[in-house]
């Protein structure tokens, strides 16, 4: 499993390493190029949210593994003023672009899970996850690899996934 990655967000240019790291982790976890693009886009939207509305924050990307799926959990935190009207921000975006559905609602729609915790005067934490379900062949290969490692006490790479 790849390591967690943190990117500090203070200016437009910081969007680049966040996008690049998110895309790289997604591909490493076996996501398709299309899903990796959607993840990079969602990261861009929440990074833009930090830059435009708060000025400073951090994006963390954490790979997770469950029995039948891999996930990439992206967490954006800031210590800004908090979101005054969370429902409106999630439904229509945060004022810009005339309610086209970009920004937070856009990111929410591109990811599988999306949660926002925001407190006035304390800050905002956005947690969003994209999942990739592992197919039966992949699971079978992993079981065989684990059995092999257990019996022979050595690592054998057979392309069973990250």
């Amino acid at each position, binding site marked *: 499993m790849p390591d967690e990655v943190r990117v500090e967000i203070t200016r437009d240019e910081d969007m680049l390493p966040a996008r690049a790291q998110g895309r790289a982790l997604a591909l490493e976890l076996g996501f398709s190029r299309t899903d990796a693009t959607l993840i990079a886009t969602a990261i861009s939207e929440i990074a833009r949210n930090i830059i435009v509305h708060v000025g400073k924050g951090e994006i963390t990307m954490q790979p997770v593994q469950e029995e039948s799926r891999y996930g990439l959990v992206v967490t954006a935190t800031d210590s800004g003023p908090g979101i005054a009207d969370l429902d409106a921000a999630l439904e229509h975006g945060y004022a810009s672009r005339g309610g086209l559905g*970009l920004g937070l609602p*856009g990111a929410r729609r591109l990811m599988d899970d999306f949660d926002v915790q925001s407190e006035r005067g304390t800050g905002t934490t956005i947690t969003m996850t994209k999942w990739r379900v592992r197919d039966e062949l992949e699971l079978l290969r992993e079981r065989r690899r684990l059995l092999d490692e257990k019996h022979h006490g050595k690592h054998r790479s057979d392309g069973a996934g990250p």
Partner: protein
Amino acid sequence: MTTPGRFRSEYVAALHLHVVDRGETTLRDGYELGRRALAEGVSALDLAAIHHDALASSLEPIERERMPEVIAAAAAFFQEILSAFEMVHRGYREAAVEAAAERRQAAMLRRLSSFLADASLSARHTDAAAEVLQLVAEHARELTAASYSTASWGTGDERARATSFDHESGATLDPSVAEHLERIAPALPSRVPRSRWAGEPTLRALSPSNVLTVAVTALDGRQSGFLQLADKGRGDFTEADEAIARHLADMAAAALERAELYRGHASV
């Protein structure tokens, strides 16, 4: 929709740069161009045409054997362009689904309103109450995607109760559990999510995964019954579900009181 010449020339320049650079910077430029296309009203068809022309011009100076890698790079760039459109498209789809659900809900409420008006005029009060409660229990269950619902009204000999199950999913609720739920209804918060059932010892033994309870209140403020819904198919009961249940409980109370009034007039 016309395509501004400036957007077209910027697109061509950005794609040319990307097929050479192929890094995150030029992909980000693609994503920004896609956002701009949306804001400026450039259509998806125009974008496809611009991309095709830009790709053709990118390929002109390229040797044949390098073409596949340039085409692959251009495809990645086009995905970035379209990712902003994908966000908006998903928003439209979501809105369409919500609008359809609201239309369905409005139609069901209109139908229920007419049924309740008829039911409250039944010759016998007990029939009227049973019919009203049955109609409300069934509609509430269907509108909130619950597996089980119960509606009650009145006390003693005048007490009436109706239940409804989602027969298609084969849902059942142990009658003793249903009765227990009804007994503890006054003490229950309006919405008890799955996580709460697991955490409270007194409720843990109950089989429903989540419960929504609203009072059926008469016009003078008397709490005369309850509408309870259990086992929502997906997720927990939401604020919207609670609003629907309250609305239906109010409709039920109005119909039941109308039935009582009608009975009073008929007996005179």
